[in-house]
């Protein structure tokens, strides 16, 4: 399997990483206490690990290539496409769907409230991911400031409740619309921008919103945030903490279902097609009579809408909002959900959100290494599945006569 060349290569890579990590991993300085600690064993651990990993990777890759060659004659032999064709079969996906649904419905009864809270959060990211997917995945507009709309939603609930005593259900649609309005506001100046210029402006927009929330204390209570936000009500019933958490969970599930329904219908409509086309080639798009301005603005508005609603859920679940929760990292994670899941694929994004939000939770066991592993996972996932967990499948049409 492994040739001498492989071993030599692995050795070189091991040595390279020993060199690379030498200053940071071996020498630990503390300029406060003026100490220098030498940790030579780290160097050898790294060298060894890299050596073994390289060998493993190489033999693994070789196996894979061989297998690929064997399979090459068979079209569609790839696992993912095989799964996909099976999934399209009603006999398979209906029972599967009900099983998944059952799992989610029974979740709070089988797991602790803590687990339920985490799952609620993960579901929130499903909604966020699906919303951002409209902008990034479908319309192809790279938005790095999506968290701004999330913040708009969360603060809408916090403030409207604080000042006017408006309840969860009243604010939910209002916040969605407000966020959509912000989406349009952001959309206007950036219409002419392309690709990565758009990215930086949206990033800036996200930061501006956060900074305004931080500094304009009279309006937003500044960095100390707003607490005591009521949880969602249920016909004025008095819910205990546990009940209320479970109730929020089910609401969130409904919200996810609603989002999936709407987003799916939007994607497969006249507007959805225009968004896709815009992503593919905006010049051809205009030549086909599509109003670029309006199409972009609807994408921004409809994407932001979901973030606004998710924001209300966020505020209600935590009963507390502060600008700290709406940093760029949050935008980045939502973007990761979309890309990792597979741009434009609803199932992919659901999987992406569950993985990315639940993963760090369950990595708490190795708390120190958790974000390290998280970062590495992002890189590895991209290397092995650059198109995301599930790549987009365009809808097929048949002619009804």
């Amino acid at each position, binding site marked *: 399997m492994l040739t001498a060349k492989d071993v030599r290569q692995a050795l070189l890579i091991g040595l390279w990483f020993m060199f690379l990590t030498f200053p940071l991993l071996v020498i630990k300085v503390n300029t406060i206490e003026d100490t220098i600690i030498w940790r030579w064993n780290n160097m050898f651990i790294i060298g060894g690990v890299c050596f073994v990993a390289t060998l493993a990777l190489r033999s693994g890759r070789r196996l894979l290539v061989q297998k690929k060659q064997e399979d*090459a004659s068979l079209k569609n*032999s*790839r696992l993912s496409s095989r799964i996909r064709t099976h999934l399209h079969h009603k006999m398979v996906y209906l029972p599967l769907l009900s099983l998944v649904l059952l799992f989610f419905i029974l979740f709070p009864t089988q797991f602790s409230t803590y687990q339920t809270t985490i799952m609620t959060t993960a579901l929130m990211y499903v909604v966020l991911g699906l919303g951002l997917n409209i902008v990034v995945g479908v319309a192809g507009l790279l938005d790095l400031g999506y968290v701004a709309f999330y913040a708009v939603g969360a603060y809408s609930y916090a403030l409207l409740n604080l000042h006017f005593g408006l309840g969860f259900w009243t604010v939910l649609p209002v916040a969605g619309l407000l966020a959509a309005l912000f989406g349009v506001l952001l959309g206007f100046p950036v219409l002419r921008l392309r690709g990565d210029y758009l990215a930086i402006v949206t990033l800036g927009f996200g930061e501006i919103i956060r900074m305004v929330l931080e500094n304009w204390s009279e309006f937003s209570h500044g960095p100390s945030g707003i607490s005591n936000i009521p949880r969602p009500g249920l016909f004025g019933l008095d819910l205990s903490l546990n009940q209320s958490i479970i109730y929020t969970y089910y609401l969130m599930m409904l919200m996810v279902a609603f989002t999936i329904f709407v987003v799916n219908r939007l994607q497969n409509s006249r507007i959805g097609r225009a968004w896709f086309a815009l992503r593919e080639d905006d010049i051809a798009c205009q030549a086909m009579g599509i109003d670029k301005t309006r199409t972009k603005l609807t994408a921004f508005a409809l994407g932001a809408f979901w973030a606004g609603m998710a924001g209300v859920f966020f505020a209600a679940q935590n009963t507390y909002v502060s600008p700290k929760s709406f940093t760029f990292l949050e935008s980045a994670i939502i973007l990761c959900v979309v890309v990792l899941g597979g741009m434009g694929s609803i199932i992919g994004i659901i999987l992406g959100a569950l993985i990315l939000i639940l993963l760090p939770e369950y990595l708490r066991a190795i708390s120190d290494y958790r974000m390290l592993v998280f970062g590495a996972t992002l890189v590895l996932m991209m290397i092995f599945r650059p198109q995301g967990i599930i790549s987009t499948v365009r809808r097929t049409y048949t002619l009804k006569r």
Partner: protein
Amino acid sequence: MLEIKNIDVFYGNIQALHGVSLRVNQGEIITLIGANGAGKSTTLMAISGIVPPRSGSILFEGRDISAMAADEIFKLGLCQVPEGRHIFPELTVTENLDMGAFLRRDSKGIAQDLEYIYQLFPILAKRRHQPGGNLSGGEQQMLAISRALMSRPRLLLLDEPSMGLAPLITKQIFDIIRTINQEQHTTIFLVEQNANLALQTAHRGYVLENGRVVMQDQAAELLSNTAIQKAYLGI
């Protein structure tokens, strides 16, 4: 000079070439014709090392180049003008031409060749300080061929040089192809949709169908072959 033996080329899981074999002799103009998607461009890309074949071998002057990196292959004197021209859009015309001579270090020779090119294509001289991306389609094609010539290749691979060119220019370009072949003894591997013209220019030809070589012969023979006439010459 160049010998391709039984190569299979894949894009992911899709096989584009099935056991293609062909040879190019020193000093020849060889043409490869075939319908859209037959695999002509793929053959050229395999030779240039952009899409290495999964099996089979490519010998250039006896050396197996099938696993070599593209830049190494180029150094051996193989230069390709790819389909779609691939002009560097933000470099000026002159800079584009300079890039062709990237590996050369004889600045005098380069300057001479530049003059020669500007004589060959006066329009390029006129546009020499324009960014390549602003040229019209035909101008870009001329630039692409000229850029390849700047590397003084021994084997020139041309992918559909006549695409989008005015009749006059097409004629000019084919004249130039013949000229380079005769005067500079550059061997030429020509891929062309305009089969008529290609077969009139070339010494020998190969016909590619669905990734397989289905016919090979002297160009004149192919030109008069009725099956070829019906399928590719529109007669």
